[in-house]
């Protein structure tokens, strides 16, 4: 190959990359502005917005101390504590970018889910620093798409696949996952050079515990006053967590909680009392794919809770460290990563229905929107069960299928609007 060819090829590639960045930034700016423009934004939300701006607009890496290696993780089954203990920082890389999705569309089969397509797109274009700077990728084998993603990534990047058991009631399944975590920890040691020790693990657990303490405080606050913050704002907070060192996130979360507490004391709510309270569940909602939460709040509903893995569930389950030894902590981590997880890739998932029922009670929910990303089969399967159970409780539920593009926004708008009207009228007629 001669030199000119190389330059021409290189420049074409560069042009493609530049085009990608321009488009991607444009989408991110648009959605960040929409989030920003929603009324009743708490002041303490600003740091979280800045984090999203830094990652998606300024195209910089994750928010962390200089020189700290990052590990890309893909599902909630990867215990963050283990990565922090190894002296690295976990970054959740599940993608929500429409631009990356378009690239991934050519790599993955038509029916693959857009989330995985977006990740493959990011990998293929190779311009997002958050993706590029990762020293290791940790992909739990959950659904079929993630399984193929693990294969795709392992050919291109140093990758660890974590074999998540498909059932959880047997002790042997959990012990198998403990072994996986030991192997994962060994890989982490190879990357960072930090040996696993009880002290480091305990410190890391303390760090995430502080974050979960603040998150629990937030949940308590919202349980008391479901309308104190817009759900979209909260989704932004949880998305920002994916790219932030947990200690910093905790500090900002504490400030947010303090502000919300003050607001509750003053009786200052983010929405009017009579707005329909809606819970969102189903496939993950990853920035910048915020069209659904934004639509709900634009159409006069209030998003009071979410049961999605980029939302509350992402950091909800704490490890119950019963045995204060390395093995004890590992068991606790394996336990909390698999057993309480409501991911539909597990064989038996009655707990998800119960979890949603509990959230309905906690946040006084009036309607449930079931979000399905096109091609996300496992979530689609569970819709039937949930619809049946919610029917018994007389809570309306709709299934909303969407893809990573803006073509279906208007169609979604009509459906969401109709659903919110339905709740409003249902409320009035029952009065």
């Amino acid at each position, binding site marked *: 190959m001669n030199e000119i060819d190389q330059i021409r090829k290189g420049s074409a590639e560069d042009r493609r990359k530049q085009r990608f960045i321009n488009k991607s930034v444009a989408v991110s700016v648009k959605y960040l502005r929409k989030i920003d423009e929603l009324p009743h934004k708490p002041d303490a939300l600003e740091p979280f917005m800045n984090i999203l701006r830094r990652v998606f607009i300024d195209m910089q890496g994750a928010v962390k101390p200089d020189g700290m290696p990052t590990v890309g993780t893909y599902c909630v089954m990867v215990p963050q504590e283990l990565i922090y203990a190894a002296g690295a920082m976990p970054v959740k890389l599940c993608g929500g970018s429409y631009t990356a999705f378009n690239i991934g569309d050519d790599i993955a089969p038509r029916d693959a889910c857009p989330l995985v397509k977006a990740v493959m797109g990011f990998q293929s274009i190779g311009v997002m620093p958050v993706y590029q700077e990762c020293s290791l990728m940790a992909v739990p084998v959950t659904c079929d798409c993630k399984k193929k993603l693990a294969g795709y990534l392992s050919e291109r990047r140093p990758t660890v696949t974590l074999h998540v058991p498909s059932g959880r009631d*047997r002790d042997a399944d959990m012990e198998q996952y403990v072994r996986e975590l030991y192997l994962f920890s060994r890989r982490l040691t190879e990357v960072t050079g930090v040996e696993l020790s009880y002290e480091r693990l305990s410190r890391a*657990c303390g760090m995430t515990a502080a974050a979960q303490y603040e998150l629990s405080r937030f949940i308590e606050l919202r349980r008391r006053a479901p309308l104190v913050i817009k759900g979209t704002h909260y989704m932004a907070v949880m998305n920002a967590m994916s790219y932030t060192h947990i200690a910093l996130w905790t500090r900002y979360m504490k400030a947010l909680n303090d502000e919300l507490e003050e607001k509750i004391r003053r009786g200052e709510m983010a929405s009017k009392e009579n707005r329909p309270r809606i819970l969102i569940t189903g496939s993950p909602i990853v920035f910048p794919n915020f069209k659904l939460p934004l639509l709900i709040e634009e159409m006069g509903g209030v998003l009071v809770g979410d049961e999605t893995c980029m939302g509350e569930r992402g950091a909800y389950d704490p490890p119950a460290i019963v045995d204060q030894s390395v093995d004890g902590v590992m068991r606790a981590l394996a336990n909390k990563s698999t057993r309480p997880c409501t991911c539909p890739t597990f064989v038996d998932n009655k707990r998800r229905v119960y979890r949603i029922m509990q959230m309905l009670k906690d946040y006084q929910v009036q309607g449930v929107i079931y979000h399905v990303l096109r091609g996300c089969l496992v979530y689609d399967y569970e819709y039937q069960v949930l619809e049946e159970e919610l029917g018994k409780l007389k809570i309306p539920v709709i299934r909303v299928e969407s893809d990573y593009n803006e073509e279906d926004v208007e169609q979604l708008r009509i459906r969401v609007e109709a659903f919110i009207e339905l709740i409003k009228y249902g409320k009035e007629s029952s009065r």
Partner: protein
Amino acid sequence: MKNKTAGRILFAVFAVVLCVAAYFAADLAFFQYDDPLERASLSVVNDGEALSFTYDNDAITLHAGENTTVYALTTGGVTVVENSYTESLPANFRGSFAAVRTDVSADTNGDGVAENVTAIAKTDMEYTQGYSATANAFLSGEIPFEVVYADRERFTVYYRSQPLENAEITVTLADGTTKSVVTDENGDITELNLNDVRNGLTFTYRPDPQNTYQINYQVEADTIFTARWFSAMLPFGIIILVSAVCITLDVLLRKRLYKNEKMPVGKTSVTARDKRKKRFVFGFETIRWGVMILSFALLIFGSRLTGTVFSNVELPTFACPYNLDQLTSAGCYYLSHLDVLFSESWVQILAFFGTFLVCAVLLGRVLCGFVCPLGFMQDVAHEARQALHIEGVSLNERLYAVLRMVKWVMLIIFLGIGFVGGSFCDFCPAMAVSPALAGFKLSLGLGGFVMVIVLVSGFFKRRCFCNVCPLGFILGLTHKISLFKLKKDAVACTECGACYEACPMGIKSIFTVREGKGDIRKIDVTTSDCIMCGECVRRCPENNALSVTFCGKKIYSADRMKFMKHYAPPKTKYDLELPEGMPDMTGGKDRE
């Protein structure tokens, strides 16, 4: 399949060996003291002190004057002791001595006229004491006035070998205080404090103005932190030492094994230290430890602390009945010696089962979690491991299945051994703890070895013995009608399995139960294994998902914020613990 059969055969062999060992438990000695008579000595000194017996470790000294005759109770009746026994006492002695001195005349009542004083001293060695209605009595003509200490709570006063009814007796305690008591129609005095008895006391009786009878009574006193107590603690000390050695060996062996198998790093880090201070959160756990420490003290030193013994309360815990100082007597004795129980009267049998049933229904296995001294010992061992951050054994269904099988073998041994001529006490680990701590010298049979196993297994797996405890199993049988219940809200539960991990008894149903009779928000998940330790509730991160109820009222419920407080650092520490070089993201919208 082959593996399973081999496992079964192995277990059958183990069960048979265990049963045979339990039968010969008394012969498989862990620590053997000499017979009390063999190690004791008796010397008579004339040092001018009042006529009395004193004890120094195993040596008995009689402080005598002129014209003193010493008597000993033997299997053949009362004999006169002519010389000192400096090495040991003859085997036919029954552990009771008396000395009489008749030549004294003194004015004891202060009326200016001297009376004839008959000074007597009596002592009973420790091993003669017990909760039996009959005690060693001389009742001989040479000893005109005598007190007999029976059942560790009453003195029967004899005057010329006849019970002295409705007579006024002056009792002088060791510190010099006197009090006047009147014997009842059987000649009994019951109002004396056990601690006063332990210190020695003098009874004075004046039948007429010319004669005074004085008897100084002393039981073999066992005081804590004396040479005598330390020698009683010797076997227990050996047990702890052996356990520590076993644990160290185990840890070293495991370290080596992991190294050879190239197990992932970290699994063997034994000496890891965590200097972070744990936040103290007051809760159910604190109360449980409080109750456990209190009941441990009471069940071991109870009568020493309070001065009384509730000998008719038979608390079904492994507080050893050989320890005579505990507050109540232990129900384990009759249950493991059913042959003895059935030879008692009907009233006795009914009374025993009555109190047992009341205990079982009112408290059930709460006794295991809060009261049992053996359980406390295991919890202490577990806490020691927590402090050292040594890894334990992996808890899983397989382990619990084996433990359940062992429990059946233990139950058969517990209930049946008495009928074939053995005694469960020789096999029982509790015998090594409670009497030793109270200062009773007890030779240990196989029980000493069992105690080592209890401590070592309790170190690596919390409350391991409780999983195979036959007494606990019997207590748990009434869990359906017990007043304490564990309730689960299946909707609030996320099935995170923390309760199952935390449960020292390995109750899995608490985590897997999803449906139950009636309200799914109030499923009764109490099982016969549950010891109500509240660990599951403490480790439960969901509000009200688990709760302990008493008579249907919630007394302890899971609380997410409380759970978080348990392991999150104090709120003020967030700012301090930020790693260096962290960017600041709080900047305003200056970028626009």
